[in-house]
């Protein structure tokens, strides 16, 4: 087997490459704005990336096995933070997601994604025996229902913020971890069926704007200047990039502010207009390689907790990338998910880099 330490370098190089692309994209997308705050946003992103890299190095030096012991502490901390956000969080874009901490705004839901991965990994590696085929049916069911309940609590809290995207993502990550764990397929199928039955209930609990987003996804031209506006503009941006793209300062869609959120969730549309198909392909390849290394780390991990944790983290990154890209191209409804490494957002960057730190640490332990 090749030296597993190579992953370490490759993962860091890819992460830095993606983050740098993100900073450049943010720079070109916001430098033409009026306000000084927007103009300087790339500097803050740079700061976050630097902090993220420092966290990555620190975390990669701390054995991931401590996380196993810390799991419930982290879980409780996450839930408390979510409750605090619910009670006193900063309202932004009609949602209560941010927690003002010292000098920056902190998004606990973002952190909760990682905590949930740790929690679920902990649970399945601890109740390892419960998944064996010889145990009773009841034990098996309990082995699925308990983590389901563990996940449901934060998911509901996040859903209430409201942040449909993150809530759905956490749940989806849970399903994937369930899948890569040794849970029998029929449980997963049963769970999926249950969710399917719950869908109508879910629909009525959605807020109006969330319903509208889903409807617009089905037909963006329903309301081209209102709710369909973003998706149409993002498609225009992506498509007008062509093969070679328009260059750094010719991404007119975002630079003239036709494309909203071009520095956060829709950064890929901006990137695609600048760099075209060619650039997008390079970006996608970088993401894919990162995910591939992540899966390799999971495969080669020496213990079950590491396997689930590395797998969960990789799936977390992969799902965010895929959902974000699909959303920009109008393949899935618009949900507020950032593109890892590229989108502006302190918490997201920090959490992503910390996750990579854990991944690298697992890779190191595999040696």
């Amino acid at each position, binding site marked *: 087997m090749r030296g597993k330490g190579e992953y370490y370098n490759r993962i860091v190089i890819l992460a830095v490459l993606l983050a740098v692309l993100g900073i450049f994209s943010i720079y070109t997308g916001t430098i033409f704005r009026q306000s000084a705050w927007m103009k300087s946003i790339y500097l803050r992103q740079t700061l976050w990336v630097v902090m993220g890299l420092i966290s990555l190095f620190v975390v990669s030096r701390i054995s991931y096995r401590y996380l196993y012991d810390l799991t419930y502490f982290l879980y409780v901390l996450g839930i408390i933070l979510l409750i605090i956000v619910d009670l006193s969080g900063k309202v932004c874009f009609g949602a209560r997601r941010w927690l003002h901490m010292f000098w920056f705004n902190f998004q606990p839901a973002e952190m909760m994604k990682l905590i949930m991965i740790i929690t679920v990994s902990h649970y399945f590696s601890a109740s390892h025996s419960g998944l064996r085929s010889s145990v009773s049916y009841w034990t098996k069911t309990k082995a699925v229902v308990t983590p389901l309940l563990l996940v449901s609590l934060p998911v509901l809290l996040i859903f209430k913020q409201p942040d449909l995207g993150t809530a759905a993502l956490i749940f989806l990550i849970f399903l994937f971890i369930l899948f890569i764990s040794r849970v029998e397929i029929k449980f997963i199928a049963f769970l999926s069926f249950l969710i399917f039955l719950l869908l109508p209930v879910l629909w009525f609990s959605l807020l109006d704007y969330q319903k509208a987003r889903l409807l617009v996804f089905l037909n963006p031209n329903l309301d081209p200047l209102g709710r369909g506006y973003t998706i149409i503009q993002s498609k225009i941006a992506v498509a007008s990039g062509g093969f070679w793209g328009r260059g750094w300062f010719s991404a*007119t869609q975002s630079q003239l502010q*036709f494309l909203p959120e071009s520095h956060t969730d829709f950064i890929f549309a901006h990137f695609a207009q600048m760099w075209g198909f060619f650039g997008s392909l390079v970006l996608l390849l970088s993401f894919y390689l990162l995910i591939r290394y992540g*899966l390799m780390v999971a495969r080669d991990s020496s213990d079950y907790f590491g396997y689930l944790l590395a797998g969960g983290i990789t799936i977390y990154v992969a799902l965010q990338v895929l959902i974000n*890209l699909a959303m920009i191209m109008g393949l899935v409804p618009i949900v507020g998910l950032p593109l890892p490494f590229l989108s502006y957002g302190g918490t997201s960057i920090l959490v992503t880099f910390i996750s990579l730190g854990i991944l690298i640490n697992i890779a190191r332990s595999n040696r």
Partner: protein
Amino acid sequence: MSRLKIVHYFIITCFIIIILNLFYLQFIKSGQFRRLDLANRIRLIPQPGSRGAILDRNGLVLVDNRPSFNLYLLREEEKPKKELFAKLSSVLGIKEEMLQKNYQKKYSFGFLPVLLAQDIGRSHAVVIEELKSKFPQLFIQIAPRRMYREGAFACHLLGYVSKIDSWRLEQFKGYGYKPKDEVGFGGVEEFYDYLLHPEDGGMQVEVDHRGRISRVLGVKEGKRGADIFLTIDLRIQRIAENALNGKTGAVVILDPRNGEILGLCSFPEFNPSLFVQSSPVIRTLLNDPDAPLFNRAVSGTFPAGSIFKMIVAAAGLETKTIDAKTAFFCRGAYRIGNRQFQCWKEHGRVDLIKGLAASCNVFFYNLGLLLGPAKINQFALKFGLGRPCTVDLPAEAQGKLPYSFTPFEVPARFRGGAVALGDLLRTGFTRRLRRKTSWFDGDTANFAIGQGEVLVTPLQAARMAAVFANGGRLIQPHLLRAIKKESSILKVKFKNPKVLPLRQSTLNIINQGLHQAVCRSEGTAHILSSLKVDVAGKTGTAQVTGGSSHSWFVGYFPKDNPRFVICVLLEHGGSGYNACLVTKEIIQKMLEEGII
């Protein structure tokens, strides 16, 4: 297969789907979306160039442009809000519905701004500039606008400008005329539109999502049309218009030496500015029975009356049918067949000079019958009647003669057969004379005094008189003197006057007759003898069936070495005396201003 591998393949599949979709968008749909991208952000703002000015012979401005402020609305993503129209309505004092309607009517392409209101005035423009902070999609364009400084002054001569009509658009499409262009109608504005017409410029700008101009991509400067200098003398034009004011008719004053028209006016008149504003008054102008839009000086044809006698006299002398001493006796009437042809007075013994001076009909009945209609017709054609003067004004009338086509104007190879063809083509003109069947001596007599089928325009009459003033040359009347394009002045040369084969003695005798008409006490234009300049001329009282006669005066002054030919026509103005009064007023004023 391990579950991790399944997840791996799942992720790969998702990536492939995304790449395929990316390929679809960025390759197959790229062009279509790129157009959308352009439509999003590129706007064209037309910047009209300014039309050339029209100046008089001394460089005084007849027509120019003034800056006007047009209010435009750049297209937004959304329809303009009601609030905006309400605000504009309160500022401009235009009804909100009118603005809404304007917006809907003027909207053509997404990338073109919409013209909401034209010529809103400087003070309104300033207020709207301040509104821009709230409504960034508004913008004010300064566009040149035709200004007719003195209202109706020289309106027929100059014409007016207005939006191009469909007929002209169809005709001139190849010359770069576009819909909504302003083009000249009538007068010099129309005739020299190709010189005056500006080349429109434009600005290509990039706007942001709120319609604000974020940068200018390119500017094409509008090119100013050429300025033109007319032969008109502003002072003479003003004198002529003032003299004619209130009467229906026309005045033409030209230089007999080179055909330069110094003054040309027609009354009633109209205000060309009405057309620039597309005012609703235009409709009443068009329906006015006095036809104020009609330029009587070049487009109106009137029976020539006694002024035609100059030509009959010239024909008589040239053909040696009579000489200066030949005399006829006037008893106040002349009998042809069983019909009495009247003279306006009993003149007694009349020779040619007296015949012209006193305008004796009997003399010309006799002379006409001796000459025959074909000869008279032939000479009338030589003097430029019955065909257009080819003056540089649109819609010139050609007038009418009993027979407008003479064999000597036909190329040799067409002679004979072509005459018959000409007959066929001109049935209207040849009605009787050529066939002879229904042409009687009475018709010849009427023809000889310019009644009946002789219709002339005032300009033709002036041109005819100019032949006697300049020693037998048929001039080319024209209005254009020079063209000024990009600071270089180009003098325009028109074709040289055509020398008519007239003997000097003929001219002398007729000139004497014309002078006698003024200086003799029995002369029809005796009233002009009190002027400090020697005038020679001929009055005319053209009878019309129904209504009073048209009043004519054509003449030239100073008698020796004439520099001005004047033709005054008063439609239904009564006797020729009335035209003399107008002439007198004009010459008097010209003397006062020291023009002569």
